[in-house]
């Protein structure tokens, strides 16, 4: 059911993230829908509250207080007795309350196999490939007693279990034994909601019936293709995709108090508006942008526990979304360090820092996920970590977004232990038109210039790419709002949500520092002209307002190219934005940073200064 302004004059929308619950107020004002006020509060998934609706109440209270201030009206209220008043009656209540959720956080799985080093490891690879954290691998030959394995399943409270084991036509007995263990543990969903724990069976196809008999009643059993049909062949795609879909659709939004929250989300006729998983809502928005503008788009939403990447590529608008449930800025921040390695984080830091201090800072953020960087130095460090989280999530996305999904791949024994890939990625940075960033670290960076820097450094856009950001993080809210009002969602999206930050021009290829890389002549809308022969290894920022375009004559030198046709010279219109036009001659494929800090740090400072990313005080 869709509504317009006759029934919707005031809407509260929330996104319950793993760390923060963000509330926005959308109102019909002066003949249009606008986002007017924003509030937030820590997500409440820890005792003594342990109820996600408390965070919603706290964030809504902040909205109410700010609304009273804004309208100088002490009577404004959205909730009474701890619940939304729907529909609105004058100053009291709202016409609809909608929400998205990813409050459950990352995906922590257990995997089982018959032989730890064979099917067990394949299962582990499938789970890792789906962006999960593997808490433990249980196998028939891992030397633990059965009761110890059961105890372990109970203690770890996995979000999902992947069971592998047995070649097709091979052992059934051992596979069923593992299923009996899982049944014996009688695993319950960690958050005790009204759904059963998902268990994916991707083992010997001949054992499927026995597995159904053993586990069918106890868990939500999903059977998929054998991930190791033969010893020398691995077929991870189907299991990996199943893990990913089930997590995104059924697991990640779950949190203590979720059932109560479900009863709160109501439209103007007090009908239920289902809570949407955050990445589903953001995915809808990214697809809508691509279709509206007829362009290729990459979007990213970086949260506390997960980093979600969305892409629309090719003329058929092929949409892909991935949720890296092990990469994020709070709960998963330490895993970013473990996955990216310290040196990759430090390569983005323009000052000396004691390594152990940095490691301890990262761990402290992990154990106190709701804190925010108050010091400039800590902000720079968090943004360096964000670049690596984004880079790794995008790498994972590229592996998912392939031409042929789930194709079986032959592996020889020597290859059997390396990460598998299948098909060719359809992600092509040279044809990409728009890169959109969302999530706390990108949407709430104190300077938009920092957001531009993070997006460019992490995604390394090639050729000519526009950059945009979700202004205050509201894409999830609008994604779910469109379920009851496409009109309201679209209007707010265009006016208040998507902020164009500018355009990045990055010639592709290898060059030598100091040698000429790009000659640019850019006629700006105010009549001025930017003209420079820019050497390799530089960045230039040319201010150009939002909504304006500049005419550019570009010429790449020394083997560098500017577009998919490998042109070296281009006459193009470049879109302006809040930050402006960035000319980046640091090279692509490869993009290389000097290993030695003595060479790297001066370069970082130079680029950051040019991009106006940080105050001078930290760059001296």
């Amino acid at each position, binding site marked *: 059911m869709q509504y317009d302004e006759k029934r919707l004059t005031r809407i509260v929308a929330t996104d319950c993230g793993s760390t923060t619950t963000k509330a926005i107020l959308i109102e019909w004002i002066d003949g249009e829908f606008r986002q007017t006020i924003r509030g937030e509060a820590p997500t409440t998934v820890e005792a003594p509250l342990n109820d996600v609706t408390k965070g919603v109440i706290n964030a809504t209270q902040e909205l109410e207080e700010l609304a009273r201030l804004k309208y100088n009206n002490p009577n404004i209220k959205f909730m009474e007795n701890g619940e939304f008043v729907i529909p609105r009656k004058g100053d009291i209540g709202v016409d609809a309350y909608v929400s998205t959720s990813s409050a459950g956080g990352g995906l922590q799985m257990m995997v089982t196999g018959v032989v730890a080093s064979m099917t067990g490891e394949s299962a582990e690879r499938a789970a890792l490939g789906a962006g999960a954290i593997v808490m433990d691998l249980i196998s028939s030959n891992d030397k633990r007693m059965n009761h110890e394995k059961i105890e372990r399943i109970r203690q770890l409270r996995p979000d999902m279990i992947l069971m592998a084991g047995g070649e097709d036509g091979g052992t059934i007995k051992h596979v069923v034994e593992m299923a009996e263990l899982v049944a014996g543990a009688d695993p319950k969903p960690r958050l005790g909601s009204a759904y059963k724990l998902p268990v994916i069976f991707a083992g010997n196809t001949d054992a499927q019936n026995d597995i159904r008999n053993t586990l069918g009643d106890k868990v939500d059993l999903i059977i998929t293709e054998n991930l190791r049909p033969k010893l020398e062949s691995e077929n991870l795609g189907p299991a990996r995709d199943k893990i990913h879909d089930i997590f995104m659709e059924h697991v990640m939004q779950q949190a203590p108090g979720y059932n109560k929250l479900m009863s709160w989300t109501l439209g103007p006729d007090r009908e239920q508006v289902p809570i949407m998983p955050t990445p589903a809502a953001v995915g809808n928005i990214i697809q809508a942008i691509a279709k509206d503008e007829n362009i290729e788009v990459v979007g990213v939403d970086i949260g506390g526990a997960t980093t979600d990447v969305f892409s629309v590529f090719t003329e058929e608008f092929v949409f892909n979304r991935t949720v890296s449930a092990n990469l994020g800025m709070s709960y998963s921040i330490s895993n970013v360090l473990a996955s990216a390695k310290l040196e990759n984080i430090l390569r983005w830091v323009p000052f000396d820092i004691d390594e*152990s201090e940095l490691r301890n800072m990262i761990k402290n953020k992990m154990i106190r996920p709701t804190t925010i960087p108050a010091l400039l130095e800590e902000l720079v460090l968090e943004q360096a970590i964000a670049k690596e989280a984004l880079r790794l999530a995008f790498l994972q996305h590229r592996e998912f977004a392939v031409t042929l999904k789930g194709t079986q791949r032959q592996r020889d024994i020597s290859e059997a232990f390396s990460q598998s890939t299948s098909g060719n990625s359809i992600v092509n940075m040279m044809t990409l038109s728009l890169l959109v960033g969302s999530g706390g670290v990108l949407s709430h960076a104190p300077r938009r210039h920092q957001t531009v820097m993070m997006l460019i450094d992490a995604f390394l856009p090639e050729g000519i790419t526009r950059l945009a950001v979700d202004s205050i993080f509201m894409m999830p809210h609008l994604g779910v709002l469109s379920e009851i009002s496409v009109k309201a969602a679209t209007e707010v999206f265009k006016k208040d949500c998507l902020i164009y930050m500018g355009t990045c021009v990055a010639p592709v290829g290898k060059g030598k520092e100091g040698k000429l890389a790009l000659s640019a002549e850019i006629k700006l809308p105010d009549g001025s002209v930017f003209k420079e022969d820019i050497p390799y290894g530089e960045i230039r920022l040319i201010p150009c307002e939002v909504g304006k375009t500049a005419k550019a004559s570009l010429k790449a030198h020394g083997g560098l190219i500017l577009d998919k046709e490998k042109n070296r010279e281009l006459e193009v219109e470049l879109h302006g934005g809040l930050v402006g036009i960035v000319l980046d001659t640091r090279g692509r494929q490869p993009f290389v940073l000097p290993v030695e800090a003595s060479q790297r740090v001066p370069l970082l400072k130079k680029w950051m200064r040019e991009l106006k990313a940080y105050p001078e005080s930290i760059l001296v």
Partner: protein
Amino acid sequence: MGQAYSAGLTVTDSIILRKERILPLKGSVLVKKGDKVKAEDVVAETLLPGKVVPFNLANKLGVTPAQLVNFIQIKPGDKITKDTILAQTKGLFGLGFLKNEVRSPIEGEVESISSITGQVLLREPRIPVQVKAFIDGVVDEVVPAEGVIIQNKSAYIQGIFGIGDETTGILKILVSNPEEELDAGKIDESCRDKIIIAGSMVRYHVIDLARKHGVKAIITGGIDDQDIKKLLGYDIGVAITGHEKVGLTIVCTEGFGKINMAHKTFDLLKSFDGAKASIHGRTQIRAGVIRPEIIIPLPFEESELKAPEVSVPYLEPGALIRIIRQPNFGRIAKVTGLPEKLTKVESETLVRILEAEFEDGTRFSIPRANVEVIES
């Protein structure tokens, strides 16, 4: 804004606790509702069948399987010890001369005897799987065949992070104040089986020494990330811990790095120096958070054991707060104001702040997200 919710850890001198103690497999519950139990008491148990050891007795004895029946000394179900005679021949002329005998290689029981193959199946003793009470208290509820729920009154401290499983021991303070780093010189045999308390930091070589002296657990304000890595042999990716087998349990009350233990926590522990405590390092920081716990049982009347009311910590003027991020990590202050408008902090981030005052009267402001309320 008059007040705001703030997350915080529980540190209290008295709380009513309920602990579920459940077997991994069904078995028998050894206590009944109302029983008083000690932490180390086994409250539920199940016996797993022992390993089966096949043993060709006829061969060993040098007779045919069919003849075995004439010489066998055991029957299925018999309990055996190592060296129990399983079978023996009568010797020449029945006089015991050149008598041959075969003794049991294991302790356990006889499972079966085959006169066709001459093989006996021996079974090693049953393996008990037990659940202990973990806390001194009273059995409040019995879950038939699975376990119990135990209740007690305790002084109670939630840690921020820990490693290692459940254990119990006597608390022993080894530092004079919460700012002091635990020195290796303080660790000796008097620490055996104790739960030792450090101040702001305990380093790897001290932990290692504590292990060698049989220390059960260490409670510390801070710990270095690299020392944890050295102890575990791997880097922690997400905070899901408690199963580590490093020889002792560690509970960190403040965080990573050298951080003074909160005075309230230190003073509480100090007041129970020499008391018995139950402790575990289990931590899961994700929705449905689990934190490490230090539980010091107190004497109680059963009438006191009423479910505690959930108290929610709120930020309001006058509330005591602890700073949980740089700068001034760990310092205590009193809230003086909660301005509603967003404020720009050093990092240029626009945030909701609070105004507060340190004990020495210095006034400052800080993002609300970077403090926790402590009960005064």
